[in-house]
């Protein structure tokens, strides 16, 4: 049953469809009210107006072509046209055309909203090179969006089937690609894979395929999916991988990994090495950046992130960051990131390719080095007076401040700034000893040497230099440490001890000699006394007894003299208290002593002379002890003069009227220079031991000196070995 006219009228006006009747040129014959929303005229004014004039340019030609190609047998459906309304809005209509008796009937439906969505989807699809597909497992029907066709360079008019879709994959992967889909249908789990395809025109492309199940009654009724062309990205990845490989070979041993961060997509590709280094799963190329961030040490995260954003915004293309990352073996390790940023036209970083380097060992080494350096510096500046580290060429690598100061002071060089050899900045007299020690140290020997140094202030400094060869990990001597220990105090003490030892030894010798001399001097007359006593016991002849008694007297006298000298000496301190000063005529006093020894001198056949000075003033002295002093000197002179002369003189010097001089000059054996100071030591005789040829205790001269000094005078000696000696006594004159 057909519509009534009135029914149809209502239907035509109330419908949401746009209804028009036009002629073959596109001019309106009539239209329903709905069309007023797209045209700037009313239904009544519509007749004769061309609809083509209100189409966008692109669609106008399509309209003309459509109208001209219409036949009564061949109507057109579902053609989209976009009209521009009076307020410049765009309205899309999907139109069916029917030609009947030269008049065209148009039925249009508003698809503006869907079109907008569709258009943006297409744009997105095009831009991302991603196509959509769906598959009906019941009917095995496969639908491909246009982009899918484009991706495969396939004409959109060709129907797609599952087999056709699979044919683009290489034979090797075809089976498991199919398997993904079958698995999804049974397990209802989504899948994702990246594979290579060969398109219609033979181009090879890398695609990422995602499949998602749509369930109804817990059964997969539909599979929605996308397919994306990731060739570019994949090639980047591959390039990176190959770069990585090259780099890996180049930097064998350095722990580093490459990554490619697509900032817009918030996806990061991590190289194989990178993932291995951090213990990330090896089968996933891309990973959201957040995953990575969770691995950063909590203490470093904030700063690292701050640096990260600063890096992305700064000028240029470089990227630099550092942080600790969780290591797959547990704990955290130090890493540094060096990157290159790719920017878009708006100067925004879109991509960053970087290299993550494991600097953990470096950090630890740095720390160790810093620690060791501190330690070394502490040692260098505290342990020894001077410490110098030189390499095997003798070039100074390091030195303590004191050494640096000295070198700077003496040679005006700073070895830390200017390369210089130690041997070039030391006093000439050290060079030999240094070279010797250094060469031995370079051969691995620990060498110690003592040197005496004079500081620039003139003080003597004794140093013990230790040459310590330092071996590196390959057991090769790399450096030599010279440490200088100040042993001045020890050395001085040693020298003092040595001197004291020598002195003690000497004193000991002197003591033995004194005892030996005393013993000899006592035993010689004692031998006479004892033997004579024995002889007297058995001697009856009075003349013989008389002789013997005379010998006994002589021996006794000699023994007594020795004993007296000894006691005189020991009593010399008390003598001072009992001095008997008187004005003494020196000529008379000296002559008395001269006479007392004339007999002995004559016995030895010595020339024995006396020279007096009549003008000599008197002296205020104790004449007894003066005579004892002079007698000892005269006796001594005779004793040590085997031949020649003894001259005793008294004189004054006009230049020194306060003094009276008495000299005793002999032509005797003389005294060695080194012994002159010793002869006044009590008990010391100039020649010792078995080679001693002279009798006497040796007390004499020291006693003379003591007495003369008590009287306010002095004794001086001038002597030449084998030529003779002059004793000069100076006594103050009484004025």
């Amino acid at each position: 049953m057909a519509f009534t006219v009135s029914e149809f009228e209502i239907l035509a006006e109330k419908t949401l469809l746009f209804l028009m009747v036009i002629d073959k040129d596109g001019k309106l014959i009539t239209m329903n009210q709905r069309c007023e929303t797209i045209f700037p005229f009313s239904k009544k004014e519509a007749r004769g107006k061309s609809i083509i004039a209100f189409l966008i340019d692109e669609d106008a030609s399509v309209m003309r072509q459509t109208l001209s190609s219409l036949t009564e047998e061949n109507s057109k459906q579902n053609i989209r046209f976009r009209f521009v309304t009076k307020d410049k809005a765009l309205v899309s209509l999907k139109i069916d055309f029917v030609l009947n008796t030269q008049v065209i009937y148009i039925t249009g439906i508003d698809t503006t909203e869907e079109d907008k969505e569709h258009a943006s989807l297409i744009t997105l699809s095009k831009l991302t090179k991603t196509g959509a597909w769906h598959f009906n497992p019941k009917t095995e029907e496969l639908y491909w969006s246009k982009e899918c066709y484009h991706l495969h360079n396939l004409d959109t008019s060709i129907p797609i089937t599952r087999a056709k879709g699979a044919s683009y994959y290489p034979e090797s992967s075809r089976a498991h690609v199919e398997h993904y889909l079958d698995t999804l249908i049974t397990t209802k789990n989504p899948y994702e894979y990246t594979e290579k395809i060969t398109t219609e025109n033979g181009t090879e492309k890398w695609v990422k395929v995602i499949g998602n199940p749509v369930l109804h009654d817990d059964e997969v009724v539909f599979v929605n999916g996308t397919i994306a062309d990731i060739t570019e990205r994949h090639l980047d990845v591959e390039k990176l991988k190959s770069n990585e490989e090259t780099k890996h070979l180049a930097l064998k041993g350095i722990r580093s990994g490459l990554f490619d961060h697509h900032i817009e997509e918030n996806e990061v590709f991590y190289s194989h090495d990178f993932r291995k280094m951090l213990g990330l799963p090896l089968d996933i190329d891309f990973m959201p950046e957040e995953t990575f961030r969770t691995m950063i040490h909590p203490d470093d995260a904030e700063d690292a992130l701050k640096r990260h954003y600063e890096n992305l915004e700064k000028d240029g293309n470089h990227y630099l960051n550092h942080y600790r990352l969780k290591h797959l073996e547990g704990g955290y390790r130090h890493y540094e990131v060096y990157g290159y940023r790719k920017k878009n036209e708006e100067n925004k970083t879109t991509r960053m390719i970087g290299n993550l380097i494991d600097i953990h060992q470096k950090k630890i080494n740095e720390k160790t080095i810093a620690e060791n350096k501190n330690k070394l510096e502490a040692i260098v500046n505290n342990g020894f007076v001077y410490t110098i580290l030189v390499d095997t060429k003798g070039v100074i690598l390091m030195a303590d401040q004191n050494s640096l100061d000295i070198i700077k002071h003496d040679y005006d060089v700073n070895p830390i700034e200017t390369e210089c050899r130690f041997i070039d900045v030391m006093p000439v007299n050290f060079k030999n000893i240094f070279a010797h020690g250094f060469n031995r140290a370079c051969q691995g020997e620990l060498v110690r040497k003592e040197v005496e140094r004079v500081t620039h202030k003139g003080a003597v400094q004794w140093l013990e230099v230790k040459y310590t060869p330092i071996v590196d990990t390959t057991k090769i001597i790399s450096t030599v440490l010279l440490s200088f220990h100040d042993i001045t105090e020890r050395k001085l003490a040693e020298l003092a001890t040595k001197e004291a030892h020598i002195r003690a030894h000497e004193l000991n010798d002197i003591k033995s000699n004194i005892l030996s001399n005393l013993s000899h001097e006592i035993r010689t007359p004692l031998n006479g006394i004892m033997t004579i006593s024995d002889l007297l016991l058995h001697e009856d002849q009075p003349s013989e007894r008389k002789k013997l008694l005379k010998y006994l007297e002589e021996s006794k006298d000699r023994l007594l003299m020795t004993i007296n000298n000894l006691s005189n000496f020991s009593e010399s301190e008390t003598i001072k208290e009992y001095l008997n000063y008187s004005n003494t005529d020196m000529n008379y006093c000296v002559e008395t002593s001269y006479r007392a020894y004339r007999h002995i001198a004559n016995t030895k056949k010595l020339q024995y002379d006396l020279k007096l000075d009549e003008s000599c003033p008197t002296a205020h002295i104790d004449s007894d002890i003066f005579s004892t002093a002079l007698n000892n000197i005269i006796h001594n002179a005779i004793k040590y003069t085997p031949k020649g002369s003894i001259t005793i003189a008294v004189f004054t010097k006009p230049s020194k009227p306060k003094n009276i001089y008495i000299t005793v000059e002999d032509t005797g054996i003389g005294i060695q220079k080194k012994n002159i100071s010793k002869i006044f030591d009590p008990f010391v005789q100039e020649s010792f031991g078995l080679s001693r040829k002279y009798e006497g205790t040796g007390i004499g001269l020291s006693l003379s000196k003591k007495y003369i000094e008590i009287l306010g005078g002095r004794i001086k000696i001038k002597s030449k070995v084998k030529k003779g000696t002059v004793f000069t006594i100076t006594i103050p004159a009484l004025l």
Partner: protein
Amino acid sequence: MNVLYVEDNKINAIVMDRMLSKDTSNTVIIAQNAIQALKLVTRQPILDLILVDINLGVDQMDGCELLQKLRRLDITTGIPVFAVTAYAMPGDAKRFKKVGFDQYFAKPVNFEKLFQSIDKIKLKK
């Protein structure tokens, strides 16, 4: 028995002569120094004993040097030489024996021992 006594101290020389001469078979010849002693040795070939003082005076050859000279002479071969000296400190006896003296007598001389030694020499003859 002929004894040469080298001694610079007159009294000691005389009293030694007197002591040894108590035995009338002994003849004592005195030398005041080493040079004299060496001359006497060559002139007096029949010597049975030589007694030598060590300290022989100012600038003179001492007893030890004299001994060495005597030892070099053929004439004195086999004649015992005794040191008679006032050097009598510990170690002196050893030293003089080391120099080559056959015996050592410290002054004052223990004549009992000296005579014993002389008797031994006589017995050997």
